[in-house]
């Protein structure tokens, strides 16, 4: 469980994170979504006590992160996979974390196995790792302490499609066992595949929060008929918004039942009638952050 309340971070006059509040529930994978520079990483660093908040508070498992005794055993954190000493071997990185948190050294092998790093790869220095291997090592070190909560910043970055699939299964499994997962990404497709709850942030503010399916569901109906023109006319006469699609068919701002009634009344034969396609996360994302983008452009125009 992670609780973020009115978290704000100002750098001079600029608010990198502006009054952000959300909760991350156990048993779910919560995606933290936003364009680059939206404040995702700053928020995550504030949650982990690395960046002091200007105002507001974040609690992990009911406490501010720095107040957790041996936080490595309660919360697995990966904030930057590249942030490892290039001269250490992968195994040494995990050994240091195991020594620090008091985890049984045998768990190093279990965890390496879990993230799919071989003994030979673990014996190589991190400087020779690909970004994907660093991500796996970072996830290994997050999982090492057998935590209840995972906080991962852009963990899919650098993973190939098989790696993303693997991570989705891993996080599903973790959440399925009652774990709490917060992961950030600007990669919408990965997020669509991995997360079941989503918090969208744009220019430091939360612009949407909720269940993925709810956020993606789009109001309206798609209809196709033997005479789209006549159907559109009938619907418009009833005061309903209609858009004739270039690809054929109508996008109607009404429930399917109402469209069916209108078709029956107008004597038009329906060929297809269903709720509108759920929009992709990408559309949602662009729509939600469009206002911010415009506001920014306006600000940049000299007065």
């Amino acid at each position, binding site marked *: 469980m992670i609780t973020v309340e009115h978290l704000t971070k100002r750098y001079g006059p600029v608010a990198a994170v502006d009054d952000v509040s959300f909760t991350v529930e156990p048993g779910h994978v919560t995606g933290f979504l936003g364009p680059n520079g939206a404040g995702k990483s700053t928020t995550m*660093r504030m949650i*982990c*006590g*690395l*960046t*002091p908040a200007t105002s507001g508070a974040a609690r992990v498992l009911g406490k501010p*992160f*720095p107040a*957790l*005794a*041996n*936080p*490595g*055993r*309660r*919360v697995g*954190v990966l*904030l*930057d996979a*590249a*942030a*490892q*000493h*290039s*001269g*250490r071997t992968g195994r*040494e990185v995990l050994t*240091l*974390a195991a*020594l*620090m*948190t*008091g985890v049984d050294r045998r768990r190093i092998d*279990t*965890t390496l*196995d*879990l993230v*799919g*790093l*071989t003994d030979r*790869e673990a014996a190589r220095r991190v400087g020779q790792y690909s970004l*994907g*291997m660093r991500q*796996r090592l970072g996830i290994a*070190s997050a*999982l090492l302490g*057998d*935590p*209840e909560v995972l906080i991962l910043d852009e963990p899919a970055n650098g993973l190939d499609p*098989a*790696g993303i*699939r*693997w991570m989705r*299964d*891993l996080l599903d*499994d*973790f959440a399925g*066992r*009652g*774990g709490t997962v917060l992961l950030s990404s600007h990669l919408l497709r990965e997020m669509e595949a991995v997360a079941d709850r989503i918090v969208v942030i744009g220019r430091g503010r939360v612009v949407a929060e909720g269940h993925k399916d709810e956020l993606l569901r789009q109001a309206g109906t798609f209809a196709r008929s033997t005479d789209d023109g006549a159907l559109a006319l009938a619907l418009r006469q009833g005061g309903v918004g209609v858009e004739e699609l270039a690809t054929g068919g109508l996008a109607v701002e009404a429930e399917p039942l109402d469209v069916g009634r209108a078709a029956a009344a107008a004597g038009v034969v329906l060929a297809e009638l269903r709720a509108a396609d759920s929009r992709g996360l990408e559309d949602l994302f662009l729509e939600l952050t469009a206002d911010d983008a415009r506001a920014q452009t306006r600000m940049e125009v000299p007065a």
Partner: protein
Amino acid sequence: MTATTPTRDTRTTRAARATADLRPVSFGTLTLVEWRKQLDTRAGRWMLAVIAIVTAGVLAVMMAVNGGNHSFSAFVIGTTTPMAMLLPIVGVLAATSEWSQRTALVTFTLEPRRTRVGLAKVVGAIGSGLALLVLTVGLAALAHLLVVAFRDADPAWDLTLHAVALLALTVVLFMAQGVGFGLLLRSTPAAIVTLLLVPTLFGLVGGLVPGMAEVLPWVDLGTATEPLLFGGTLDGAGWAHLATSALIWVVAPLVGGLWRVARSEITSS
């Protein structure tokens, strides 16, 4: 790298272990981890190896010149100048590598009590320094043994425990100073240059200013530690000079560095 499908072990169930038995990371553990971090990279191992090699080199030269006729304590003293130059760098690296290698992010999420991490670095660095001092004294003893055995030098096992204790004190000061400058400046080159140049320049410039000659011993660590490094003794004024100059060049940077680490933002860039 294989894409294994995780079926278990991402986390054990809550019943499998109690959260209550989790204790905070102890200072001893932190110190051992910080000490290990000084030795588990090539850079760190090389730094210590270079010091050992330089020490051995100085001893070899001393064995060759002047008929090798040097006492045990002369051999030890001969090695202290390179030690004094290089040891603080070990302390600097212990601190700056967290930023130059960006590991601070991981270190301070595993132990958010940052001041303890900084102090563990100091203690770990002192451990490395004292281990090197023991090695140096051992090598000096070997060198003296060799010149006595093979070059007919007069045996003079004259190193006093007092002199060793003063050397150990210097090591403690230099290591703490290195970590302090490292924590304060966070950049390896900046910290090393500052550490080696500033006190020297300070001493030089201070010497040129009229009236500074009397003040200098109180504020120049180089002057104050000279008797410690070269087998001298300290009188009351000497101890007072050491105390004030260590306050300026060791305690102040260390406190400043710890304060900066405790307050600042830890980022990955």
